[in-house]
Structure formats: C-alpha cells, structure tokens
C-alpha cells in the first residue's frame, strides 16, 4: 500500500515537472491544445454555433472575443492524476488499458464541454467567465475523474477475474 502511494507521488511529481518544463506550451502540449480547440470548434459548428479558430484560439466572429486553450485548461493535470492512479493500482493490464482509454476520453469530453461553456460565458459576461474558469470547472473535472476512477475500481475486479 505504502509503496504504491510513494509510486503515485513520484510519477505525479515527474509529470508536473514535465509540464513545468513546457510552460511556454510550445512542445508536447501545443498539439493537444490545438486538438481540443478543434474538437470544441467542430462541436459548436455541428450545433450551428458561430465560431472561428486560429490554432488553439477560439474566436467569436461577431464580438471578436476569444478564448485560448492553454496549459491548465487542457485537463492535463486531471488526466495525469487519473492515469497515475490507474497505473499504480494493483490490477491486470487489460483492465488498466481499458480504464486509461475510457477514462482519458471521459475527462477530455467533459473538458471540451468546459471549453465550449467558457467560450460562451466569455462572450456573455467576463466576470462569470473568470469565476467559472478559475474555480468552478477545475473542481467539476476532478469530480469527473473521481467518478471514472471509482467506477473503474468497481469494474476492474470482475474484468480481471474473467481474464
């Protein structure tokens, strides 16, 4: 138990170190941010929303207000916490692989919803945008991570027994 906890802290520490290294978002985070912006743009266009995109920037063509998808907004930390928790938990490889794939997808889908929500909030009210961006969505994504993790913890016992 203790060695797994230490492993969790070590992997998480290294991951955050990697993010600190890439604080200017020019290396591995840039394509991720652009992909999230692309998914958010496509989702909005699908529902006939008005939006244009330039790299990781989503721009409202009417007001010219924009949101940037940067480190801290890309769900990197929450995703990394989830992956680390699944990796260090004693379970079979198959369950871990499924847990990580489905979990990352669940976190990133909610993250795209968050980006879309923040895009519209920014157009509507900048104070509300700031509040939702800094305080509300961060914790909501963590609740999502917890939900995914707990469902996986319950599911993986049966999944490993069948393997």
């Amino acid at each position, binding site marked *: 138990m203790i060695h797994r906890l230490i492993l969790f802290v070590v992997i998480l520490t290294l991951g955050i170190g990697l993010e600190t290294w890439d604080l200017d978002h020019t290396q591995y985070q840039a394509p991720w941010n652009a992909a999230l912006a692309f998914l958010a743009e496509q989702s909005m266009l699908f529902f006939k929303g008005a939006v244009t995109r330039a790299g990781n920037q989503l721009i409202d063509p009417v007001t010219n207000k924009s949101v940037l998808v940067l480190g801290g907004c890309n769900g990197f*930390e929450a995703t990394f916490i989830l992956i680390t928790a699944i990796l260090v938990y004693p379970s079979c490889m198959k369950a871990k692989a499924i847990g990580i794939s489905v979990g990352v997808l669940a976190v990133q889908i909610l993250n795209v919803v968050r980006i879309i929500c923040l895009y519209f909030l920014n157009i509507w009210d900048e104070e509300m945008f700031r509040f939702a961006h*800094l*305080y*509300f969505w*961060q*914790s909501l994504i*963590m609740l999502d991570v917890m939900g995914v993790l*707990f469902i996986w913890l*319950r599911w993986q016992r049966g999944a490993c027994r069948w393997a």
Partner: protein
Amino acid sequence: MKRFFLQSLLLFPLCLAVWFWLGDWQVKVAAQIALHVLPYLHPFADYDILVEGKSINFLMLIPPHAPDPGSVRGKSYPLLQLSGIPLYMALMLATPNVMKHLKAFVIGIMIVALSGFMGVVIEGSRHLLGGLVMLNVDLKKLAGLPSYALFFAKYLELLSMLVLPLLLPVAVWVCQRRDFVLNMIASKPS
C-alpha cells in the same frame, strides 16, 4: 455510488457560493501569512504586499540606483490555491453521517486551507524571485539560492495552483472516510 456523486454535484455549487462569499476574508489571511513567512525566504528582497479585493499584489521595489528603478508587480489570486475547500466540503457533506465526523470535517478544511495558504506563499516567492532576476541579481549569492531556484519555484507554484487544490481534498476525504469509500467500491452496481 450514483447517489453519492449526484449529491456531490448538487452540493458543490452551494459550497462554492459560500466559500466565494467568504473569499475576501481568506485573501486577507493569505496576505498576512505571506507577509510573515516571505521575510524568512527572501531576507534581501525589498517588497510590499497589497490586497485588492480577491487578489494580492506582490510589489517588488527596485532601488533608485538600479538600471530600471521602480517596481515589479506580481499579481496573485489566492482563491485559486484555496479552491480545494468547496470540493472537500461537497465531498464530506455528500458522505453519510457527516455530523458524526464534524471534528474530522473541521480538521480537513484546515488542512486544505493551510495547503492553499502555503501555495500563496510559494507564488509570492516565485514573483519575488522573478523580480530578483529582473534586477540581474545573482541568485547564488542570495541566501545560498541555486540558479535553478526559479524553475523550482515555478514547479511548486504549478503544483500548489493546479494539482493540490484538486488532489488534496480528495486525498483527505478518502483518508477520513475510508470505510465509506471501500464500501462504495465493493458494493454491487446500483
């Protein structure tokens, strides 16, 4: 499990509203702690701390004989580091028998808050280190600080801003309500 997460989701906005309403008071406490702790970390820096609503300005004063006299301003939003409190409150309140664990609840809030206050100190420290770099001060000569101190301070800042407010409330809650968590994981899907 479904019931617990639904309750957490419903309680979270309420806890967030209460926590934000008490925001000014938390920022003042954070500023006071930073004011008392930072002199130990940066005995050579000349600075001031100004509270502006829900933000703190770390004002690094640059002496008149320096190439660019004036000041370097670093803005901090302490509620960012303290944002783990409403998440912890929502998790605890959604867990059954919260009244029996009132003492643990208070201790948990104090742990999460203390971590947030230390996060504000770390961010302030990073701002001051940034100011020292702008002053072209050799960091090695300042209280034995190595030259990679700025990277380390940035790293700690990221940790205290983005990871601890998410992870610590959950970790404290799991430690305090371990039986409930284990039951929830072990129970058959509802």
